[in-house]
């Protein structure tokens, strides 16, 4: 009776050949496969049924699109990172958006499949219905939260934390220690408690009140009184001290159910630098033992913020002082060459950098000018800068010329073990011929302005100091002769040479070449300003509105010759000082008596000041030109403005200026025709 046995070997009806597909589609759990970016490429019918959506609807969506809003955040912040790191997830509870927008509570298991290279290929996820479990969990949660909410401390905690958040922000917004301390007592004393006072603790532990907010009797309170003893106790124990009844009456409310006074030690980095004293007010924070943790935290935050301000001020000021002392120093005093420099430290709030400039006599007729940029910031960079500055002078004054000077600095950097990758532009100028010899070690090219057009000096270039040169390693090899090169260019009287550090031109969103081209164009346009004004115009224009984290150094060099003198002034009284410097140098070259130099400088200054004050001030395009020339034994100066003359308000000053001019020169003419032209002549004698 073969064939009659129902249980004969063979396949059970439930396990037909197509049943694996069926098992997948109708399994008691949901299945889905997603790509690593989350898009769904395969999904089973069970899952679709739960969702109440069609296959076409779901394919191509990302898995997160199926989650509720909250589930989506949880998925992105927890599940996805977890899956990427450990390759699988187990029993994770999330809510899907079910039919009709309802929630469908599920548990997920997921596995991340990777290819042989380890790259993620797909994620396979199984989904289990968890509505039962969810119900139970929700009950648990509800109970727990109810318990939490019932606690009276919860609200206070929230208020405290929002106060701390506001305090931190308020303090951090203020710049220095003084400002932060003032804000601290203002905010704490004005809003949280009755009044607040900050006591200073010095290095040997002495205390004294410094900043207060209307506290009762600050200063008058003797150190042996209530406050003084509480402050001392706070310093000694390092713990908040709460005092109930006070022996001296105060203007502050009597407080029931809490101490009247709290002294909080402000401890940071292991040192108690101050004590914050608080007086209670009945409708504000009560000083009960329960608020101790809050008060401790309050004092801790305040201490850190004040201490940061103090440390920062100290370091910045040390570095700035160091830098200023290094950058100060007289420019060689020779009328044949005008050198003007500007240094602008990095934007407020950042540490000083390592830029420097210097000018010095190299030989009887030769002046060296250097601009350099040490890598890094702060005291270390400023110190390295100082050493390199001295080294440059020392090497240069032996008269070896720019290329050898750089080689000397290479050697110095190798021995110093600091200042590597410093960039330098160095130029030596012969005062008689105007020939300039220059060399750049990885530094932006100097700008030369000649007859109204500018060009970049790209010759004489080699890598930064201490860098690998010509494939040779850093160290002795790089200091061998011949590694560094220099180049020459001739400067005529109205030429300008501009050296600068990259802070002047480096912009985050602009290619360096474009910024340097802009500098070159600007230098050409402004080259007829006095030399110091040229520096000012370049920094003002190129750094306007720029938040640069780097410091900036600019040096402009102009030769003074005996031929006719010509300068343009902007409508700024600050240009007068720059004019005087250039004009005085030119006058000195005419070799007259000392009194004539003083008289003509003062006369030109008064006439130009008048022109700016009453002719063109406030007119953006307005200019004043000053021309001077020698004719025989006479010096003639013309000061011309194109503005409309505005009579001085007091009717006196302008007139007085011109009266003075009349006493300083032999001949004075004032022409008012549209603008104003003041023509002056003075006979000059020989050297006084």
């Amino acid at each position, binding site marked *: 009776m073969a064939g009659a046995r129902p249980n004969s070997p063979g396949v059970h009806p439930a396990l037909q050949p197509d049943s694996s597909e069926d098992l997948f589609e109708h399994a008691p759990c949901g299945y889905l496969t997603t790509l690593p970016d989350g898009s769904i490429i395969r999904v089973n019918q069970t899952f679709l049924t739960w969702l109440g959506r069609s296959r076409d609807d779901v394919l191509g969506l990302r898995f997160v699109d199926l989650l*509720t809003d909250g589930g989506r955040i949880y998925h992105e912040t927890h599940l996805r990172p977890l899956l990427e790191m450990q390759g699988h997830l187990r029993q994770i509870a999330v809510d899907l958006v079910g039919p009709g927008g309802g929630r469908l509570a599920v548990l997920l298991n997921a596995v991340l499949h990777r290819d042989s290279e380890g790259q993620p290929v797909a994620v396979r996820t199984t989904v289990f219905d968890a509505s039962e479990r969810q119900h139970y969990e929700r009950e648990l949660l509800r109970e727990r939260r109810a318990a939490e909410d019932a606690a009276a401390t919860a609200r206070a905690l929230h208020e405290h*934390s929002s106060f701390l958040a506001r305090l931190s922000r308020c303090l951090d917004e203020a710049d220095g220690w003084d400002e932060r301390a003032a804000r601290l007592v203002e905010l704490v004393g004005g809003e949280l408690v009755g009044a607040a006072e900050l006591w200073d603790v010095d290095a040997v532990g002495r205390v004294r009140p410094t900043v207060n907010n209307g506290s009762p009797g600050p200063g008058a309170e003797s150190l042996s009184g209530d406050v003084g003893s509480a402050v001392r106790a706070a310093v000694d124990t390092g713990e908040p001290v709460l005092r109930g009844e006070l022996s001296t009456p105060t203007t502050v409310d009597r407080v029931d159910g809490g101490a009247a006074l709290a002294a909080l030690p402000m401890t940071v980095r292991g040192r108690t630098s101050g004590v914050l004293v608080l007086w209670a007010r009945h409708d504000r924070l009560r000083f009960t033992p329960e608020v101790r943790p809050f008060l401790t935290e309050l004092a801790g935050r305040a201490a850190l913020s004040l201490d940061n301000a103090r440390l920062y001020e100290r370091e910045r000021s040390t570095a700035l002082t160091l830098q200023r002392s290094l950058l100060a120093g007289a420019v060689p005093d020779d009328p044949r060459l005008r050198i003007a420099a500007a240094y602008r430290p990095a934007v407020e709030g950042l540490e000083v950098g390592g830029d420097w400039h210097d000018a010095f006599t190299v030989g009887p007729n030769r002046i060296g000018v250097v601009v350099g940029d040490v890598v890094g910031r702060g005291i270390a960079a400023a110190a390295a800068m100082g050493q390199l500055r001295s080294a440059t002078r020392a090497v240069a004054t032996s008269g070896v010329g720019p290329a050898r000077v750089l080689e000397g600095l290479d050697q110095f950097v190798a021995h110093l073990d600091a200042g590597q990758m410093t960039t330098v532009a160095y130029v030596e100028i012969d005062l008689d011929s105007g020939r300039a010899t220059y060399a750049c070690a990885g530094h932006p090219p100097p700008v030369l302005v000649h007859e109204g057009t500018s060009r970049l000096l790209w010759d004489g270039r080699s890598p930064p100091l201490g860098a690998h040169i010509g494939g040779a390693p850093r160290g002795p090899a790089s200091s061998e002769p011949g590694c560094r090169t220099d180049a020459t260019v001739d400067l005529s009287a109205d030429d300008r040479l501009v050296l600068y550090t990259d802070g002047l031109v480096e912009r985050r969103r602009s290619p360096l070449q474009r910024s340097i081209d802009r500098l070159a164009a600007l230098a050409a346009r402004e080259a007829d300003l006095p030399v110091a004004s040229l520096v000012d115009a370049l920094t003002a224009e190129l750094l306007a509105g720029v938040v640069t984290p780097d410091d900036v150094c600019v040096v402009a060099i102009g030769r003074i010759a005996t031929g006719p003198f010509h300068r343009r002034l902007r409508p700024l009284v600050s240009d007068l000082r720059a004019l005087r410097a250039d004009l005085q140098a030119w006058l000195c070259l005419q070799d007259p008596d000392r009194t004539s130099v003083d008289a003509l400088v003062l006369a030109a200054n008064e006439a130009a000041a008048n022109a700016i004050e009453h002719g063109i001030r406030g007119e953006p395009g307005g200019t004043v030109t000053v021309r001077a020339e020698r004719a025989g034994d006479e010096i003639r100066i013309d000061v011309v403005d194109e503005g409309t003359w505005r009579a001085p308000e007091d009717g006196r000053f302008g007139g007085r200026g011109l009266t003075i001019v009349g006493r300083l020169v032999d001949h004075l003419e004032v022409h008012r025709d549209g603008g104003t032209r003041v023509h002056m002549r003075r006979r000059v004698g020989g050297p006084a």
Partner: protein
Amino acid sequence: MDVVTRNHVRTSGRPDGQPILFAHGFGCDQQMWRHVAPAFEDRYRVVLFDHVGAGASDLASFSPERYADLGGYARDVLEICDDLALTDMVFVGHSVSAIIGVLASLAAPGRFSRLVLVGPSPRYVDDDGYAGGFSRAAIEDMLDALDRNYLGWSTAMAPVIVGNPDRPELGEELTNSFCRTDPAIARQFARVTFLSDNRDDLHRVRVPTLVLQCADDAIAPVAVGRYVHAEIPGSELVTLDVSGHCPHLSAPQATVAAIDAFLRSGPR
């Protein structure tokens, strides 16, 4: 409790190199950086840590007062800097730690030379005219989801982890063992993270900043990245063609390349 233990601080790379500090975001711990941090070890002093409450940090150091807002976490960052004497530092922060880095840099600007903000968002909740990406209800819903998973996790898994403290290799075997966070702490951290509003802090940043944005990020959408970029003066915005909120996990090479390019660019 010293800072190194409290925050489970780990350093690697060149001891004399410029410091680069990696700060993990909400929901995870320092292991998040394991595909990214090593790429900087040849040139930098790499510092990793766990926020208090996350990873292997000291849970006992947590106090609701101290961590009532992001300022508490920023304070931890500054204390780590103090302890390790980190200056001229590159700070790389993911998600909420991007904002923590911003706050730390405002409190002590001199310490930071660069900020790298990976998927930052100064405010998650939509506000008058501001699209943070989430409604207040969605945030509450997420806190709920968080609670439910920790309920399951804390009962089922905690004993296993506690039982094997001296066999870290077992960690690999434990389900969902990465990114373990104490549930109560995680709840507060989530609240602080997702309900804070730090929009007004951005414009005061004075440190060169890179905003690293994912092209398809459900947590910090592209519009938010653009907002951060526009608010932080002089910042740079790089958008990675990556989906998700964790490019350092899903596209570590692209992430490393973007950070590296930023660090090599511009003024030192």
